[in-house]
C-alpha cells in the first residue's frame, strides 16, 4: 500500500513525512524522522518510555498511528529544553539523581512536563498517580518524585530549602 503523506508540527518545527498506514507515531519519530529520544520499552502502552505530548495531551506514541499525527502539534523529549537551556524538570532530574540507566527518563520528563502544565502544584500522591504510566525499574521512584516536586516548586517561583 502506498505511503501516506503527513504534515505535523514537531517540537515547534513544521515537519512533513511519509509513513506506512500501520506505522506507529513512535516508529515514525524514531525510524523516519530520526528522533530516537522516545524509547520503545513495550510497544503496548504499558511502560510510558515513548511518552510525547500531542496537542496538549500526554500520549504513548506507540499507541498512536503516524497518520493520526496529521495537523497536530507534538512535543518530544528533544523539544523540552530551550536550546542549551534545560527545562527545570530536566535540571531537577539531574540534581536529584533521579535517573540511573536513563532509558525511562525521556518519557518521565515528558510526562512530568505534561503534569506540571496541567497542575502546577501537585501533591505527592497526585504526582505518583500521574506518573503511574511510566515504569522505572532502577530508582524505586523516590528520587524521581522528589525531582518532580522540586521542579514544580521552582516553576511556581518558590524556593525549597
Amino acid at each position, binding site marked *: 500500500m502506498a505511503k501516506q503523506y503527513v504534515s505535523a508540527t514537531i517540537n515547534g518545527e513544521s515537519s512533513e513525512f511519509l509513513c506506512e498506514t500501520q506505522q506507529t507515531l513512535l516508529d515514525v519519530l524514531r525510524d523516519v524522522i530520526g528522533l530516537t529520544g522516545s*524509547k520503545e*520499552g513495550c510497544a503496548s502502552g504499558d511502560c510510558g518510555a515513548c511518552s510525547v505530548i500531542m496537542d496538549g495531551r500526554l500520549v504513548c506514541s506507540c499507541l498512536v498511528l503516524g497518520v493520526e499525527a496529521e495537523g497536530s502539534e507534538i512535543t518530544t523529549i528533544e523539544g523540552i529544553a530551550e536550546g542549551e537551556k534545560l527545562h527545570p524538570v530536566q535540571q531537577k532530574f539531574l540534581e536529584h539523581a533521579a535517573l540511573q540507566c536513563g532509558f525511562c527518563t525521556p518519557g518521565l520528563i515528558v510526562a512530568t512536563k505534561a503534569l506540571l502544565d496541567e497542575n502546577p502544584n501537585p501533591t505527592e500522591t497526585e504526582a505518583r498517580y500521574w506518573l503511574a504510566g511510566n515504569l522505572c525499574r532502577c530508582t524505586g521512584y523516590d528520587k*524521581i518524585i522528589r525531582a518532580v516536586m522540586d521542579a514544580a516548586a521552582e516553576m511556581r517561583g518558590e524556593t525549597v530549602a
Partner: protein
Amino acid sequence: MNYITSSLKIVGTRPVRPDGVDKVTGRAVFAADTRASGMLWGKVLRSPHAHARIVSIDTSKAEALKGVYAVVTAADFPEIPSEEAFVGEGPMNFRDLALNCMARTKVLYEGHALGAVAASTQAIADEALALIDVKYEILPHVIDVEEAMAADAPILHDDMFTTGVDPKPTKPSNIAKVVTFRKGDVEAGFKEADVIIEGRYTTQPVHQAYIEPHACLATYASDGQVQIHSSSQGHFMVRAYTAKLLGLNMSDIRVNPAEIGGGFGGKTLVYLEPLAVALSKKSGRTVKMQMTREDVFRASGPTSGAAVEVKLGAKKDGTIVAAKQVLKYQAGAFAGSPIGPGCMCGFAMYDLPNVDVVGYDVVSNRPKVAAYRAPGAPITSFAVESAMDDLALKLGIDALTLREKNAAKNGTKTHYGPTHQNIGFTAVLAAVKSHPHWKSPLKPGQGRGLATGFWFNIGGESTALVHVNEDGSVTAATGSPDIGGSRASIGMMVAEVLGVPASAVRTIVADTASIGFTHLTGGSRVTFATGMAATQAAEKVVEDLKRRAAQIWDIPVEAVEWNDGMAYPAGSNAGEFEPLGLAELALKAARTGGPIQAEVSVNAQGAGPGFGAHICDVTVDKETGHVTIERYTAIQDVGKAIHPSYVEGQIQGGAAQGIGWALNEEYIYNDKGQMENAGFLDYRVPVASDVPMIEAVLVEVPNPRHPFGARGVGEVPIVPPMAAIANAIRGATGLRMPDLPMSPPKVRAAFDAAG
C-alpha cells in the same frame, strides 16, 4: 594508597553525573538507537511449544520472499561441545548457551529461538518468519520445579546425570546437580533445642524487567572483521561469547558498548549478537535486531522460582543451635540456577554452630534463568527470614533482639567456609535499633516487618585509563558498562586523587579494542574493582606529574608535593617555584617525556561483603487482599558511599524490585506450558503509586581492601524485602504468607482459609 582516613573533597559529595545531560535530553544513544547505511532488520523465529523435537525446518519460502537477504538456523552455526564458560556471571556452559541462542534438535521452552531472518523492513522480516515451515513432534513438558524432579517427569536432556551425588546416577534426570554444605552436627543441635520452627516456602520466577529490551547492531565485513554495538553488562562478555559461538577470533570482533537501559544481571549473557553476526555474514549487510517485550519475557532470563524448606532450633534465650535448609531452584531449560549462592546466603547473617544445607539445580521447560541482583539470595532469605520471624514469635523475643543475639561478627566462620572479616552487620542492626522508624508506634491496623540480607560482592579483573589531555583536562576510560551511575563514581575517585573538581574529569566507557580486559558489570564489582584500577591509574599520573615538575624545576622528585591539582616544592629547602597545575604540566608534556597517561589493570580481591536490614510497615485490605506499603526504611552497610545519591538510588531501586517480587510479579503458565502474562500489563512491576518514599540509610563500615573503603551496594537491597513484607503482613493480620507473590487473590484466600 589508602584514603579511608583522609579528609576528602570529592568522594562523598553529590555532583551531577557526567552522562546526565545526554540522558535528560534524549541524546544518549542506546543500542536500539543506532542505525547504519544499508541496514537490515533481523528477527527471530521462536517456538510456540514448551517442549518439542524439531523434525524439520524448511526455510525455502522465506528465502524466496522479496526483501529477505538471509535466513539462518542451527545448521549455520558450529556445533559447540560441552565446556564450562569462563565469562559471564554465574555458572554457564558454552554448549548450553549456543543451544539457548539457537535450538538444534529440540526446543525446550516456549520462545526458544530456532531460526532468524534478515530483511529490508521489519514487516518483511515478520512475513518471512511466518513462511518458515517447522515440523515439530510435541513432547510432554514440565514447568513446576518439584514435578520436574519426580522420577516420571519428562526429561529435557538425555545426557544430564545429576552431579554431586554418590554413586553417579545411571539414569538421566532433570536434577543437574546437588549441592551440600554442612557445619557441626545439625541433628545433635536440634536435640539441644528448646524450640523448633519448620516452614516451607515457594517463590515464583521473576524477570529483571529492565525497561530497555535487548538490542544490537552487527556488521560482518568481507575481510572477517566484525563490529557490534549492543546493550549489555559487559562488552568483553559479548565479544567472548560471540567469538566462541561463531568460531571467530576475539581480535576480529570489536564490541562498542551502547548505553544500557537497565540489566540487573539479565544482560550478562547473549541472545541476539551471535544471530545478528551470522545474518550479517550471510547477507553481507549490517543487521539490527531488537527484542519485543514479549520476547524479553518469554526468551530472556528471569531468575529462579523455588521451593525452600527451613528448620530452625533455638534455646529458650534465643540462641540458635541448629539450622537446616533444603532448596530446589529452577534453572530453566539449561543447568545453572543460582543454587550455590542460594545455599550460602540464607544463613550467612548468623553465627550458627550446626548447619545443614542441601540444594538442587533443576531444569524444566522454562526460559534459561539469568543472573538477577544478588542471584539466589532473595529466595533463600525470604524463607530464612520468614522462619526467623516465626521463631521470634514462638520464643516471645523481639525480632531485632533475636537477630542481634545470633548476628554474624568478624571472626564468625560461615557454613560454606570463609570466615567473615570487616563486616558491618552489627552496625546495621544498631542502626535499626536507633532509627525513628523502628521506634515509632504503629498505627491501628498496621503491621511491621523486619528482615535482613547478605551478599558477597565480588572484585575481579578491571582496567582503567587516565589521560591528562593537551590542555590539562582529564579523561578517564574504563571497560565497565555504566548501568547506574558508575561513570560518576569512577570520575570522582580519579578527581579526588588528582585534586581537581569532579567536573574536570570526563569518564567514558571504552570499547573492547580500546582498553584492557574488564569483567562485566555485575556482582556489585564496578565501584570496587574498576574504581580500584582507576584510583591506581590516577595515582600513577600524579607520580608522573611530580616527576615532570621535578624535571622542570631541576630538583629531586622527593622534593615535589602534589596538592589540590598542583605540584609544589615540598618546602623552602626544595627551592622557590611557582606551583605547576595540570594545564602548565600538560603544555610542557612533550619536553618532559611525552603524553601524560596511565593504564592500570587489576584483579581486585577483598570485595567486602554487604549486609542490610529493611523495616516495612503495611496495611492489608481484608476485602480485596491488597497490601499497601505505608513506610519503608532500608539500612545497609555500604563501606564508603562514593556518590551517596547513587548509593541511595541502588538501595531504593533494589527495595522496589523486592516489593514487586513480594507482592505482584510472577510467570503465569497455561496447561500447554505457554506463558500467559508476557507483557507489562499482566506482569505487574511496581509503578510510582505502588510504593512510598523509600528511606535509604547508609551505614559506613569501611572496607580496608578498597582505597576509599567502598563495598558493593547494588545487590544487598533486593534480598530483605520479601520477608520484611511477609513479616509485616504477619504482624498486621496474624497470617503467615509462605508463597510468593503475596498478591491480592492469595492474601484474600489466606483470610478466607483462616476464617
